[in-house]
């Protein structure tokens, strides 16, 4: 059986991209400003990472208007969701692979 690291997605090795994907995996959709505040980055860093994830086909953006103000909503594509799930499965296997048990239930399964 191959090592679970082979199932890891290279793009998600970047901590900010991983955090964005983790947030969007739990959400049906999230507003750009909410993602920025939760991931604790500025607009330009988030825009850059979102562009990278969009180019990979993992994230899609939709424009909308609330109170006459433009809002950008972000969500995962089907491919993005599948990739993130595979990445998380690999991380779980690695985390538990050497007999180390997850100290918290949240590590066993992320609630969405």
């Amino acid at each position, binding site marked *: 059986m191959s090592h679970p690291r082979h199932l890891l997605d290279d793009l998600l090795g970047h901590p900010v991209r991983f955090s964005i994907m983790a947030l969007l995996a739990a959400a049906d959709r999230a507003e750009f400003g909410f993602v920025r505040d939760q*991931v604790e980055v500025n607009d330009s860093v988030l825009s850059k990472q979102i562009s990278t994830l969009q180019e990979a086909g993992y994230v899609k953006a939709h424009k909308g208007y609330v109170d006459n103000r433009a809002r950008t909503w972000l969500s995962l594509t089907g491919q993005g969701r599948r990739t993130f799930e595979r990445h998380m499965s690999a991380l779980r296997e690695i*985390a538990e692979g050497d007999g180390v048990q997850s100290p918290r239930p949240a590590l066993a399964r992320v609630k969405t």
Partner: protein
Amino acid sequence: MNAANPSPEQAQAALAEAAARAAGVRRADRPLRNLLFAVAGTWLAAAAVISLFPRGGSLVADVSIAAIMLAGIGGIVFIGTRVKALSRWALGWFAVSIIGFCVWSGLVDGVSLWSGFWASRQGSHFLITVSVDVIPLVIAGWLVGRRR
């Protein structure tokens, strides 16, 4: 962190980060609770006015009900615009709650009519029925609020 080959500790840290981000989204679901309570509150307030004027034909009652409905709709729209993120669970739960409310209130109202509990000039009976109608919304909102 070696992204290509993380250690078990690094993998655990990444899993903890994912759990923290998911918790942030669950917290963002809370306006949904206010939305459900706003629907229930609007319904109850309108029912209370109708109960105060069971004979109908009162301008005060008509204006009050119109004002309550407008305020309720305005409040619901306002809360809706404050939603920054919604989990898939929240969207599904909201749909189930509203459908459950419609089915349940239809049954309760039907029984009230069929049993004669609702009859002309029985003011408080209407409010009692509507209080039972909104139970699914209150329970659904309470459950959303408890989610961590």
